[in-house]
């Protein structure tokens, strides 16, 4: 094998100095099962080795930022959930936090706890979908591939059932509202939630044993797709990817919001920066999220669930002039909403910082030098959701 040609990742152009062999340009996507959405990677290959990547995104673009300028503060939160549809609670959370920060709107303690419970269950549901699909991508290495996927979907369904009985919806919720949350817990919900949390906690251990006792899984995850700490910060990679690259940064700990300072949890950090490190971080996060849910259920305060009266019109919420950047720790990392209010019922400008967008931007820097099969494993470990990449 000749030396891998130099790939100038800043330009996504390839300068080839190969000796012999042919170069092939291959479209991976936009309809590729491992993309988990519509994503096209134009790979330049030398044999099986990737030497250049041009990532083509935008297939799901709906211009949420323009849309937000046309919708009121009461209307947009339920639309926000359509950015990251796998963790819909997260983007609603970021948007209402931005509006509340500018408007100095208090959120009752009970509503803050309900927000935390929803956000953490959402993280578990999102990580379950990631684990299942990632393992399916790596297919044969896991004895047929779909096994873990079906297990994970089975557990995720239980969380979606909880959301359904809470909100009435399974995928896109509209649970968060400026000033609080829309619904209080229905009777019997807490007990069902505890059962689900215990069940998932136990099952996570089963998956860990299934995967980490499997030498094929380890071979495909260890040492593959290494993101250095320097690269991760420079590109703006966040969430489990950043923590997998040795940075102990979690917004729930670094800049607590919505009463996260009340809960005990650890922030997992791995230093290798490879697919396995990202996997380990998420596996620990499962348990930490479940622990936070338990604590929140134990100490759930009584009281109102919103500081605002019921809405009589969609234009009722007015936010004074101002701007802020509100961020929350989503399942994929820092989800931020940069909001500029002009005193009217609608924002003047809203910018989404989608965690998946910045996480995906690291791919052109790390894929060169890997085999095509590893591209699938690396992309899965990044866990992009294209609704959030393209917004």
């Amino acid at each position, binding site marked *: 094998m000749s030396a891998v040609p130099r790939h100038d990742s800043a*330009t996504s152009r390839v300068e080839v100095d190969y000796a012999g062999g042919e170069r092939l340009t291959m479209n991976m996507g936009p309809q590729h099962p491992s993309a988990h959405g519509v994503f096209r990677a134009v790979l330049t290959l030398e044999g099986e080795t990737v030497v250049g990547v041009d990532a083509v*995104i935008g297939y799901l673009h709906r211009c949420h930022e323009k849309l937000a300028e046309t919708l009121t503060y009461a209307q947009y939160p339920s639309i926000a959930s359509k950015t990251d549809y796998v963790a819909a609670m997260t983007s609603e959370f970021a948007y209402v936090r931005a509006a509340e920060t500018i408007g100095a709107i208090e959120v009752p303690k009970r509503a803050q706890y309900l927000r935390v419970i929803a956000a953490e269950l959402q993280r578990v549901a999102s990580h379950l979908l990631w684990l299942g699909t990632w393992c399916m991508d790596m297919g044969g290495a896991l004895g047929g591939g779909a096994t873990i996927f079906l297990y994970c979907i089975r557990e995720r369904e239980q969380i979606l059932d909880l959301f359904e009985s809470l909100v009435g919806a399974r995928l896109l919720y509209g649970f968060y509202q400026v000033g609080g949350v829309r619904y209080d817990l229905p009777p019997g919900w807490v007990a069902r939630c505890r059962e689900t949390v215990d069940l998932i906690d136990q099952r996570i251990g089963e998956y860990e044993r299934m995967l980490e006792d499997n030498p094929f899984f380890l071979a495909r995850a260890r040492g593959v797709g290494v993101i250095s700490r320097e690269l991760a910060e420079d590109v703006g990679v966040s969430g489990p990817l950043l923590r997998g690259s040795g940075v102990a940064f979690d917004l729930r700990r670094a800049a607590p919001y919505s009463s996260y300072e009340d809960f005990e949890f650890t922030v997992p950090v791995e230093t290798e920066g490879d697919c396995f490190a990202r996997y380990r971080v998420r596996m620990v996060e499962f348990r930490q999220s479940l622990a936070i849910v338990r604590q929140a259920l134990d100490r759930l305060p009584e009281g109102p669930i919103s500081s605002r009266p019921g809405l009589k019109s969609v234009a009722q919420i007015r936010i004074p002039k101002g701007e802020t950047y509100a961020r929350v720790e989503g399942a994929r990392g*820092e989800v931020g909403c940069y909001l500029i209010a002009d005193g009217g019922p609608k924002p003047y400008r809203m910018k989404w910082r989608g965690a998946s967008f910045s996480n995906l*931007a690291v791919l052109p820097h790390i894929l060169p030098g890997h085999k095509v099969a590893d591209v699938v494993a690396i992309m899965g470990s990044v866990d992009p959701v294209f609704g959030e990449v393209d917004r």
Partner: protein
Amino acid sequence: MTADQAVTLIGERFPEAQVERGAPDRPGDPLVVSLRLDQWVPFAQVAKDALGCRFFAFSTAVDWKEQGLDVIARVDNLDDRVSVLMKTRLAAGASSCPSLAPVYRGADWMERECYDMFGIRFEGHPDLRRILLSDDWEGHPLLKSYAVDTPHPPYR
């Protein structure tokens, strides 16, 4: 590096930059630094090297109509929790701004999006082309002059 030290350092190196601190009851607020256009890239280099803000959170723009366009970037020091929100103003009708991509690799995609949505030409960007919209798209949707219902066949 504390926020106080950062403010002092910015004052020494960039005396013309305006620095706003967040409210004292909100310690997590970023330092908002308004810069002249020619200080945009030098400041980013100082923020990265001297302030330790190595994490590139995002960059974007705001259309203030006849007052021009604001270009905004946020960088964070993840160890010391110091954050800087950089701003610079492009004069009305101007659409050229120096690129941060040589300083932060994260600016690559962010500035492509900004070009796509606002038509801002980032000088020195290695690969400035549309990222979310198709290459044959006309106009830049996040400009205030671009109506939400602008038709564009064959897209809807």
